[in-house]
């Protein structure tokens, strides 16, 4: 991590302190991550070069200023980009898609921050996903983001991981316990699909110590509205429909035995029932009942992270996304190996398999035209460099 100190004085202080926190500092940091992918998408084979398979490609600026008496001003601006083509990640209108926030942090009382931030429920589950919540190749992200493509849960909301217009309280370390609380005001985005989200509340707590980890989270999203294509054969035909208010319950556990970290997480996602007889009009003549897009679902992931050697990490995870009330579910498995060449550079591989049963439609994120009820095989080789 490179320090861009504010003036010579800051640089001298930094040197004098030998890496200890200076009065005020800004850190430039980032990740450049690319991979070559083979995909079997329901029988269709393809090869591609993509970005961010181990850690999302990103760069950021984060800073801290000591205000005295244990109080600090803190901020973080974090951009997401695709290294394969130089484009912004996920939303071409958002410069700092990953994080952008500023706030105050106190050693004893915790921090209060404002902006676009990670959700408490994300922090509850993050430490129990062997693929570290990576939003391109983690099976957990795949199961979660299926909420945006799976027909039966299209109007049920999913845990997006980050929220704009949010206020977050983070407690200090309380003997291994952290408490997080978020309240977010409504937001409107145009990408990847137009969504007008409602207000949101999220609270979570986690404990870490002695090789044991536990996390719980609760998120409540108010009703929202989305515009998306509902007819697979006519992707240009957009329909605006309501998203139900949704509750998310998350539990996560991990335990370290020697070099193996066993990890488990479960979430249950429960939407409010739509009004009886509510319909979504695709064209004036074609209507579908809103209830057909609203079902509760659960995601369960069991896996392990194995530090085979100081340079090699093996990750393995089994996942199942299960939609309630219809016979739709998707089991999957993924293995990965990360081999460090240095503290900053590593090579990695991933191999995964997903099987959609019924009309389920889950896939690794960023894969288009996934047929309902199809299966997917993915295999990638990549490299990641952190700076």
């Amino acid at each position, binding site marked *: *991590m490179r320090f861009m100190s504010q003036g010579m004085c800051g640089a001298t202080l930094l040197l004098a302190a030998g*890496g*200890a*926190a200076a009065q005020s500092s800004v850190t430039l*940091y*980032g*990740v450049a991550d690319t991979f070559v992918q083979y995909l079997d998408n329901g029988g269709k084979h393809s090869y591609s070069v993509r970005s961010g398979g181990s*850690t999302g490609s*990103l760069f*950021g600026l984060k800073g801290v200023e000591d205000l005295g008496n244990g109080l600090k001003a803190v901020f973080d601006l974090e951009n997401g980009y695709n290294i394969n083509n130089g484009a912004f990640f996920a939303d071409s209108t958002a410069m700092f898609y990953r994080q952008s926030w500023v706030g105050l942090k106190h050693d004893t009382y915790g921090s209060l921050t404002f902006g676009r931030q990670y959700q408490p429920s994300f922090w509850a589950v*993050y*430490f129990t996903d062997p693929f*570290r*919540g990576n939003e391109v190749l983690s099976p957990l992200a795949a199961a979660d983001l299926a909420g945006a493509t799976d027909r039966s849960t299209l109007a049920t909301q999913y845990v997006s991981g980050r929220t704009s217009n949010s206020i977050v309280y983070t407690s200090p*370390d309380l003997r*291994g316990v952290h408490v997080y609380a978020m309240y977010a005001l409504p937001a409107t985005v145009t990408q990847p699909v137009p969504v007008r989200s409602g207000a949101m509340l999220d609270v979570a707590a986690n404990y*870490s*110590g*002695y*090789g044991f*980890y536990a996390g719980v989270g609760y998120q409540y999203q108010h009703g929202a509205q989305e515009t998306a294509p509902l007819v697979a054969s006519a992707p240009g035909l957009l329909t605006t429909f309501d998203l139900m208010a949704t509750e998310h319950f998350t539990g996560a556990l*991990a335990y*370290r035995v*020697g*070099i193996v*970290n066993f990890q488990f997480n479960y979430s249950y996602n429960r939407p409010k029932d739509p009004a009886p007889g509510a319909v979504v009009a695709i064209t004036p003549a074609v209507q579908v009942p809103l209830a057909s897009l609203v079902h509760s679902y659960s995601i369960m992931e069991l896996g392990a992270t194995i*530090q085979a050697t*100081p*340079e090699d*990490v093996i990750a393995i995870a089994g996942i199942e996304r299960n939609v309630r009330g219809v016979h739709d579910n998707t089991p999957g498995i993924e293995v990965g190996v990360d081999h*460090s060449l240095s*503290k*900053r550079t*590593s090579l990695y591989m991933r191999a995964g398999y997903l099987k959609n049963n019924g009309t389920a439609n889950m896939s690794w994120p960023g894969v288009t035209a996934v047929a309902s009820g199809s299966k997917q095989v993915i295999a990638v080789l990549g490299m990641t460099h*952190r700076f």
Partner: protein
Amino acid sequence: MNQGKVCRLVSGALLVLASLDAYAQSSDVLAAPVRPYASDAKAAKAADRALQKSVIRALSRTKGLRATTITVRARNGVVTLEGTVPEQSQMGLATQAAEGVEGVTSVTNALTLSTL
């Protein structure tokens, strides 16, 4: 003269015994890793495990360090820290914390950076 012979014999025997003893001792130490007695190996493993646990405990208690993603390996007092930390500054913090644990003779830091 007889007495002198006896004396020489005894002292010679003692010397041989003493050197045998010394040899036995040193060979014991040298041979231990190659052909350990089952109970010694068990005891060593138990000691390694106990040391690993105390290092994990020390890391968990270190302020400003995220220990959740660190793997600790311990062998005869030599500790290796593996896995990831989110910030460069935490690498030094982890080494310091591990060095402070009783029974740790040296610390190898194989931690890598992971921004998340």
